[in-house]
């Protein structure tokens, strides 16, 4: 163990703990044991993310200005110069916090998963390996590998434990995302070979200059490749079906974290490594993301299935992430990362609550529900809080993120960008419309279905899941300065690289 840690450095614990969880799950044979193993593992990860944050902030406070901290590098496959190299900056730390919270709450949200709990959590752990690995990697190839590791379990998790047209959705989601990763692979290899770098390390490639003609080819490929995962219009259609069919914890992890891989990758790989092409081509993607923001919100108004509403709302909110990073200034980019964090927490909360409500009412159609606040006060109040966070109430995380994006984007000196910002601002009104429509329909008014009179409110494990998410949302929303500062510092190198 010590030897492994020596070579891998402690960031790798984020990968190692889920691996150990998998081993433990292999030998476990009762639900109690499975619950114990997953809960312990997820709690350890949560604690670990706290420790990393603390260490990161102390290191920065001590004056360490390196772009990535806690780096380690081991040759993994020498013929292609593939390294296992890790390191984190403020952005990845924020993403690690997010992933840990979602993995933790996801475990509690699927405490009584049926059937095949053992297999479910095996795939679930594998999925988290992919997610964590992606955020700690600084080597393009390793990053890509983790990305694929995160995608594959999704197919099985949806196909086996899902609801509705699960086979279709699982297939669709996997194929579309795989299509994206095919573009991505070409992009990554192109970057590596045309840059002339001697390793696939991000920081090293960033120092090289990729020829402009090559950038023109590989920037769109990489941006689109990651963009598919970030629900970029018109490649977002996997999202409504996928989310609707996925089991609760998978929806949470997928919308909460996996979609963030897209934004993170666009920023860290596509924009960072190919700044010139990014400048030239940003307008095109800006229009696409602008469409995502408004279009997703409008499409959400007309849905009747709770999960579809949130899937379209995610299209809109994740569109805002990509929108903001294309503005290429520090404030907007900080906002983008904050939005990833905030949207991750909010959507996870939404999907958790929808799962819990569905588990009781056996329907997700808003037309078949009503007056649930009376019978399910805890879930009802939590749903309202999630809704308010989503429509950007000050004091909750969504407001901070959206405002940082809007004000950052509006500082752009070009009128086109400012007009786009105003168009994107309109989404806040539309968001209010669909959120309040749902809240009004399902929670308020009279009870629609006599069977709903005797529902029982949240159990203790459901409460753990919901309360953790709410605390995180409130914490970021009411005291945003520290996390915003941490992210801002780390955005600067990328943006100044773009400005060159």
């Amino acid at each position, binding site marked *: 163990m010590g030897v492994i840690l020596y070579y891998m450095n402690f960031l790798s614990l984020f990968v190692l703990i889920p691996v150990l969880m998998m081993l433990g799950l292999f030998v476990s044979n009762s639900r109690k044991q499975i619950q114990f193993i997953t809960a312990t593992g997820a709690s350890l990860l949560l604690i670990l993310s706290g420790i990393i944050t603390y260490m990161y902030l102390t290191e920065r406070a001590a004056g360490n200005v390196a772009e990535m901290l806690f780096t380690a590098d081991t040759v993994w496959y020498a013929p292609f110069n593939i390294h296992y190299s890790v390191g984190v900056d403020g952005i990845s730390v924020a993403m690690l916090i997010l992933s840990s919270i979602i993995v933790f709450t996801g475990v509690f949200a699927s405490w009584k998963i049926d059937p095949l709990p053992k297999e479910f959590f095996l795939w679930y752990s594998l999925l988290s390996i992919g997610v964590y690995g992606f955020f700690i990697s600084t080597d393009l190839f390793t990053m890509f590998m983790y990305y694929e590791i995160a995608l594959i379990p999704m197919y099985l998790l949806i196909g086996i434990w899902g609801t509705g047209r699960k086979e279709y959705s699982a297939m*669709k989601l996997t*194929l*579309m995302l795989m299509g994206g990763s095919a573009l991505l692979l070409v992009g990554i290899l192109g970057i590596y070979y045309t840059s002339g770098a001697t390793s696939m390390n991000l920081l090293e490639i960033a120092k090289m200059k990729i020829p402009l003609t090559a950038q023109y080819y590989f920037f769109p490929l990489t941006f689109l490749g990651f963009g598919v995962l970030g629900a970029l219009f*018109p*490649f977002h*259609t*996997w999202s*409504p079906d996928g989310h609707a069919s996925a089991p609760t914890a998978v929806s949470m992890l997928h919308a909460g974290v996996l979609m963030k891989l897209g934004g993170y990758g666009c920023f860290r790989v596509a924009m960072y490594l190919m700044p010139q092409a990014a400048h030239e081509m940003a307008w095109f993607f800006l229009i696409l993301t602008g469409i995502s923001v408004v*279009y997703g919100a*409008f*499409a959400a*108004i*007309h*849905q009747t299935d709770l999960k579809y509403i949130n899937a379209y709302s995610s299209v809109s909110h994740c569109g805002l992430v990509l929108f903001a990073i294309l503005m290429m200034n*520090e*404030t907007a980019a900080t906002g983008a990362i904050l939005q990833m964090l905030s949207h991750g927490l909010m959507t996870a909360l939404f999907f958790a609550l929808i799962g819990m409500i569905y588990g009781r009412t056996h329907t997700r159609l808003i037309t078949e529900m009503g*007056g649930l*606040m*009376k019978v399910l*006060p805890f879930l009802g109040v939590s749903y309202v809080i999630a809704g*308010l966070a989503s*429509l*950007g*109430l*000050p*004091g909750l995380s969504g*407001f*901070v993120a959206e*405002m*940082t994006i*809007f*004000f*950052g984007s*509006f*500082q752009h000196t070009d009128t086109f960008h*400012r007009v786009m*910002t*105003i168009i994107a*601002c*309109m989404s*806040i*009104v539309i968001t*209010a*419309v669909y959120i*309040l*429509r749902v809240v*009004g329909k399902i*929670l*308020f*008014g*009279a009870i629609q279905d006599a069977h709903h009179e005797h529902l029982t409110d949240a159990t203790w494990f459901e409460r753990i899941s919901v309360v953790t998410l709410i605390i995180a949302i409130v914490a970021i929303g009411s005291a*945003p*300065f520290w996390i*915003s*500062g941490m992210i*801002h510092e780390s955005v600067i190198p990328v943006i100044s690289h773009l400005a060159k």
Partner: protein
Amino acid sequence: MQYTLLILVLPLLSFIVLGLVDSKWKPKVAGTIGTVVLGIITALSYFAAWEYFSMHRIAGVYEKIIPFNIEWLRFTDYLHINLGILLDPISVMMLVVITTVSFMVNIYSLGYMVNEKGFERYYAFLSLFTFSMLGLVVATNIFQMYIFWELVGVSSYLLIGFYYTKPSAVAAAKKAFIVTRFADLGFLIGILVLSFYTKTFDFGILTSGDTSVFASTVGASFMGISVMSWALGLIFIGGAGKSAMFPLQIWLPDAMEGPTPVSALIHAATMVVAGVFLVARLFPLYVVYSPEVLHGIAYVGAFTSLFAAIIACVQTDIKRVLAFSTISQIGFMMVGLGVSGNGGHEGVGYMASMFHLFTHAMFKALLFLGAGSVIHAVRSNEMSHMGGLRKYMPITNITFLIACLAIAGIPPFSGFFSKDEILSACYEFSPYMGATMTFIAGLTAFYMFRLYFNIFWGKEHKHQHTPHESPFAMALPLVFLATVTVLAGWIPFGHFVTSDRANYDIHLDFTVATISVLIAVCSITLAIIMYRKESKVPKRLATTFSGLHKAATNRFYIDEVYIFITKKIIFNNISLPLAWFDRHVIDATMNGMAGTTQWVSVKIKGFQSGQVQQYAYVFLLGTLIITALVLIF
């Protein structure tokens, strides 16, 4: 004056505590906590007002003090959101208004809401509202104001929808939130534009009179209108939404679905004047950089005021009459600001507007609480279920009458003084404006006394239970507010709040005063003739002007327009096609690609049949063709 921070912190704590305990405590305990906290901060506000107005004056001008300011979020090096407290005459005055009314409403609710389910939830929301409203008025920068502006909006949403099992309340809450949210979009974009050019959010810098801050706005225009006009106009849209100015007034009458004390606090005295406060706060900017927008505000205010006053004359739900009267009175305040100049005698409109805000908060809260007392007694909002109540409810009757006299502008009640200042400012602006506003003042006197006589006089309705006077907890606030209403007119307001923060002595303009009092007295007489006893005049009038009467009863069909826009246009013509497009075009394309792939694979899978004969055949054929090609070329 560090202790002013407590004024904000205590209600927030009270909200958190009451929100978390939910229903684990006895309702009485929750009510007491909420009320005691409000009592403490009211006392603190009074003390702060006393200290501020008596000590912080330099060379005859009140200074601005910032006892507390922290950085909350940093956007760029120059744009950062601070949370702090700014004390100047208008914010200190607002502290007094808000805490007073809120405290009264808290006491009143102990009696009014005691049998309601969710008593502690109610008090939690009231605390949240008070916190947000106080944060709004003491904001040190425009972004802090926006933050609390949104919080106020959500507390209003929660309180309107307090009876959440009642569909009409839920719909009203949603409507209020969405309409004001739409207006807030204007506010937000206004802030975006303003901060882009001035590089600051800070009120201190914006209103300091330093022109260098606005250097980059000189000559900058967009679509032929200067950027400052854009910014200030957009910001006013935000204010118009909260203050229910035409055409965004539609949410306010529906908001009466909330509990009556809430209507008194939020939809009469405090939140709805936030828009007026916003314009007053940015007044130095409006007056210098965009007088045309300021005049626009005056016209919008006047039109809204007239429009609402006409509707108020025919409504039969007593809370709705009061709601339209509120809209109309806020119109007065907006007009006051709109016609005002800066400083000295020029700035009398500003002073009058703030004065009216102050007196109106008191007497309108009193009217609503009185109406609540009536509703509590007869269990209905409809005028036709009332009548002759003066015998059963003497305290309510007297206090309500005082408030009616005040709003009608009869001396020596407070409304007379403040309204009169607005009218004389209007006459100075233009005679037409003055005449219009005087006419509206007459209408006001008419519809208020129509209301009064219909409730307390007129034909007695047969009641199932004999109506009775309200309990002590409800009567006390009535008496207190009535006292304030009687006395507030004698406050030398010009010594406290003026546009340039310097001293100004109010002079009554006797011509204006005489005309307006005469008109008010005539209107009241008319109301007495028509409504004191049962009479046929109202019905005859209604049939004579049936078109106008019908239109006014239906609130000039603005709500139908609203429904048309939201349901028909947005829901059916934008959202529905988009949702369809997403499924049947975009998604179908993706599915089509998958389908094509499958189709091609079906077609070409014959090549991989595994039959050796077929492979040999193709192989042979291929060889022959290639040989043939080689031979030919």
